[in-house]
């Protein structure tokens, strides 16, 4: 009797979850497909009220810009801090302090980060609402996630490889670039793409720091831009156009899926010599 209930419980819950997922995706794809045409991708939002006609070209470009800046910003810092923590810093107290701070930032809700970005970057530093500020706030948001992933992959590198390399008299920098990075880079790309997709879907941090209701295609990093999530939010909350809202949501989801498929595609194209060598030795 007990056993049957466990079986029932798990089967019912997994089927409910699958139903929910297929509902969401089915609904989006069926309704979104009607609104999508070639024009939707290459036209600017038009009509009165704005967004009821035309496409989402500006928003797509804006979203890509935000995500790009956020990813670059956070990648540089996350990679350097992860490397420093794993290979260079020996003081345990400093290490745990840095990890503690990263943990705090990971716990800050994204809207509070947006508030910080608005008041510090936009108002105090007077950068203004721009791609740069929005990108930085998004970068701060995805930074802890990226750093923790990077640290994990770096820690998984076989320490004997590093010892062997160092005892051959190879210097640390060369070891890092030629031994450690080739082993880790796939996991790193995977983590980067995952965080990039988080950044692209986030609305709260760019609500007042970077994204605006309508803007032309940005010509520098100091100009504001449109973003897909905010555009979608405005289309729904102002009740402008349900058809375009479906299509925008579908475009957003497809973009995220594309970003997430980058590592798989890279995997298929070809591996690295060293990685293949090590894998062959292991097997």
């Amino acid at each position, binding site marked *: 009797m007990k056993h049957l209930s466990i079986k029932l419980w798990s089967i019912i819950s997994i089927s409910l*979850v699958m139903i929910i997922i297929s509902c969401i995706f089915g609904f989006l794809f069926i309704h979104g497909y009607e609104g999508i045409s070639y024009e939707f991708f290459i036209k600017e939002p038009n009509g009165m009220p704005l967004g009821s006609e035309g496409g989402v070209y500006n928003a797509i470009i804006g979203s890509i810009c935000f995500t790009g800046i956020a990813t670059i910003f956070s990648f540089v810092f996350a990679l350097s*801090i992860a490397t420093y923590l794993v290979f260079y810093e020996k003081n345990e107290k400093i290490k745990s302090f840095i990890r503690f701070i990263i943990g705090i930032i990971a716990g800050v809700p994204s809207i509070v980060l947006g508030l910080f970005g608005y008041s510090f970057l936009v108002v105090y530093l007077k950068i203004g609402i721009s791609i740069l500020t929005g990108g930085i706030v998004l970068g701060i948001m995805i930074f802890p996630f990226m750093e923790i992933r990077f640290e994990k992959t770096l820690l998984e590198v076989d320490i004997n490889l590093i010892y062997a390399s160092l005892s051959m008299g190879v210097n640390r920098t060369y070891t890092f670039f030629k031994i450690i990075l080739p082993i880790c880079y796939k996991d790193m790309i995977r983590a980067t793409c995952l965080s990039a997709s988080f950044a692209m879907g986030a609305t709260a941090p760019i609500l007042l720091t970077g994204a605006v209701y309508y803007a032309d295609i940005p010509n520098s990093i100091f100009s504001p831009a449109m973003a897909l999530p905010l555009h979608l939010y405005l289309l729904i909350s102002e009740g402008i156009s349900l058809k375009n809202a479906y299509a925008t949501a579908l475009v957003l989801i497809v973009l995220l899926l594309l970003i997430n498929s980058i590592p798989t595609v890279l995997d298929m194209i070809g591996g690295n010599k060293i990685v293949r060598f090590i894998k062959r030795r292991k097997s």
Partner: protein
Amino acid sequence: MPEGSTSGFLRRREKVNIYKIIDKLFLYLIRFVSMISVLLLVFIVIFILKESLLTFEEVSFYDFVFKKGWRPISENPELGILPMILSTLYVSILALGIALPLGVGSSIFLSCMVNEKNRNFIKPIIDLMAGIPSVVYGFMGLLLIVKFFERKLSFSSGESILAASILLAIMILPYIISTCDESMIKILKKYESTSKALGVSKYHMIRYLILPTAKKGILASVVLGLSRGMGETMAVMMVIGNSPLYPKLFGKGQTIPGLIALEMGGASVNSIHYHALFASGLILMMMLMIINVLFYFIRKMMGTVSEE
């Protein structure tokens, strides 16, 4: 790596020195960038603290947290965020109550009841759920859940705490499933052969071995789900109705992130309103921290049976 140097001892030493300099430079570069980022992070924390503590010069901490009434721009500003705090807690705990049984059940199914091939098919689909942006969730919630409440159950307004909780439950499901699943897989790998050798049936093993041992993993997923749910802004904001009332299951409410997101644009910098928004953000962070510490101690108190 220096190679093929035939021109004698001296030349080789020079090369080694160049490499040493590169080494040093790289170390300094990395140390510099890391220091900048740590300083930036510390600065963010200090900035948020500083801006929010200014609120408590005007209102006492007790009034801010335990009083009702939110009129930040009137002559005598009233600042009490108790309804928002309660709504935030209500929504996320209810969402967890909906999501946890589903999540644990699904992870039992994923870890113990399917073969490798089907698992590799189902798991990515569930992970895909975590990648859907919150705005899209809010959109679906508005169109499916709220509309369902209004049409089928003839509510006057479908935007309610319950709608927000159901939506939030769907949003935190993938996190709960992946955390529980991870710990269950670990346990299974450790004990499966022993259990099979003893002739214990599969469901007996699930009931008496895996579920009790996975307690810690489940607890971790609870913490993760709660913190995700409490910090969630857009999706909840779109379906909860946004009015600062005490939460009722079918009534409207407002969460702290929603409050900040809605009023952030209207608050002029350095006004009491602006500081109060920062302070409510700080309260939210404090709530998250308290929950984390609480669960940390519960975890410590729970027996010594570990999953590792």
